[in-house]
């Protein structure tokens, strides 16, 4: 078996964010659909490059990137002479689904203030840690936010409730405004920055998620 190695770059072609290895690079006429593996332990890329990749993947969408053919590696017969492909750089596009990171949001209106409990979800194998949540809550009232520095890890396919944190408000009026929602189930959005630690790769990503199941509970002031 032989693998062809490509280095992957962000759109500006400066930051190598990953190494892509493709076995049996067979290019027939037209589009060829191949399977590849993106790795980060090659030492070919800058340390924060993969964080950008993680950010693009988790946030989802379509990104213009670039790739460069590096070489071929073969298992049994030394490195053969592959001509023409070396260092060929070309345009590429990265498609990613949007990974869901928030499972639900509970807002607690209490005597000592309005609190929030965020339940995170993880669709990335095998586990991922959150180091920061700094988001605005959308769909409730303007100026409501959650800001929490945490280190919580959750395994693939599981959810975890984060420690309760205080909800931030632009004004006290907006806190009082929440009373009318007590007992109601809603769909809210969250938009802002998330700190991610993926087995030592730390990155800050811009993240938006809509339609997060949310409930407001508490007592009338």
């Amino acid at each position: 078996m032989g693998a062809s190695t490509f280095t992957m770059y962000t759109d500006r072609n400066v930051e190598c964010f990953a190494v892509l290895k493709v076995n049996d690079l067979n290019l027939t006429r037209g589009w060829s659909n191949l399977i590849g593996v993106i790795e980060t332990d090659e030492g070919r890329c800058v340390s924060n490059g993969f964080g950008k990749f993680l950010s693009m993947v988790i946030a989802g969408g379509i990104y213009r990137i670039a790739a460069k053919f590096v070489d071929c590696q073969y298992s049994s017969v030394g490195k053969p002479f592959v001509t023409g492909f070396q260092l060929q750089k070309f345009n590429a596009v990265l498609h990613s689904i949007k990974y869901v990171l928030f499972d639900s949001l509970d807002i607690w209106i209490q005597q000592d203030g309005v609190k929030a409990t965020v339940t995170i979800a993880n669709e990335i194998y095998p586990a991922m840690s959150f180091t920061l949540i700094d988001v605005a809550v959308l769909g409730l009232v303007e100026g409501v936010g959650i800001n929490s520095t945490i280190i919580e890890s959750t395994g693939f396919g599981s959810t975890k409730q984060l420690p309760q944190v205080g909800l931030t408000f632009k004004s006290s009026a907006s806190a009082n405004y929440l009373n009318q929602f007590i007992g109601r189930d809603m769909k809210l959005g969250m938009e802002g920055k998330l700190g991610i630690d993926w087995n030592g790769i730390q990155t800050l990503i811009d993240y938006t998620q809509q339609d997060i199941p949310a409930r407001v509970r508490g007592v009338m002031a």
Partner: protein
Amino acid sequence: MNGFKGFQIQNHAPFSSPSGQFSAELTWHNPSHISLTLVRKFFPASYKVMLAHLNQPRIEFDLLAGGHKIGNSTISNMHITPGDNTITGFTGSLDPRIFRNNRTLLSRYLSGFIAQANGQEFSLLQLQGVAAIANNREIYWLGPAIERMTFDLPLIARDPAHPGHGNPLGESFKWDFIFVAGMSMLEVTNGTLSITITLPFESAMFPVYIEDVRWDLTISNHQGPFLRIVRNFRSSSNEIVPLGEHSHSIRSRLDKHTLVDILEREIWNMYFTRDFVASTVVHLRITGTVTLEVVTPLGNATVSGLGVRDERWDMKGLGGLDNGGKSPAEVSYPIAFEYRKWMVGFRVYNPSAIEVAVNFQLWHQILKF
């Protein structure tokens, strides 16, 4: 008059009559300032005159091929002035029986038409002067000169479809190869090569059936020739289709058994593959010959001389793996399967006709071969 050297038979349709009779036009450039007139009646010449007042004048020639007489011809009406002349009263007889079952002679004769159409010097036929006669007597002042004359007689075939007598292959090569370029090796796996051949000697009276075809093609780039394709095939595979009176379409499928030689590996490695991967168009040139085994009413023959020199072939390249920027590669839907490893779909667009296989198995396979 330089011994009448430079006669050409124009619009010759070989074997167009069962008896071998033909009439044709002769062209000749008269380098002298002297006019010569042979007519059936008195002709008053009004300038520098070699006056002939002759009854039934004619100049007779033997028609030779390779030193052997194969017919005769007569000029019965000639009016030559200084410069270019066309002589219409040229008739003759070319005995077809001489060609029957004489494969060598027939092959040379038919190939001569191809060579002539390709603009090559070719002399199969010669005219040898026999006599100049009028009033049933030799013209005393012309006869001895005629008898000493022997000169080549090029045949320019009749070709109403393509006046101007171009290359019978012209630019009719069509290329559609799929190579497998694995490692530094190369193998043709699939593809077609087609040409349209015009046979200028073919006519309704002289139909030609193409039985076998052999290509021998050399592909060059700016560094020189680096690839050779040789292919033999029989028409029984229905790859040869008549296209009217003169033309045949020959479409050859290339496959794994087609012989492809890399002539200059360094050019292949350093220039062709690099250009092929990086460029949307690779500029190549093809030089080659096509040889036909044909069946004619006079027997079998080998027709050679069909070919092209330095025909341009702009082959599509990989376009830098993104089709010159028009078709960016796609990395799709990363799914992590362990820390720091993501499975992705990888799509690359190959706009060329060359299948690229960069893997070990193919290399191993070719080495075994």
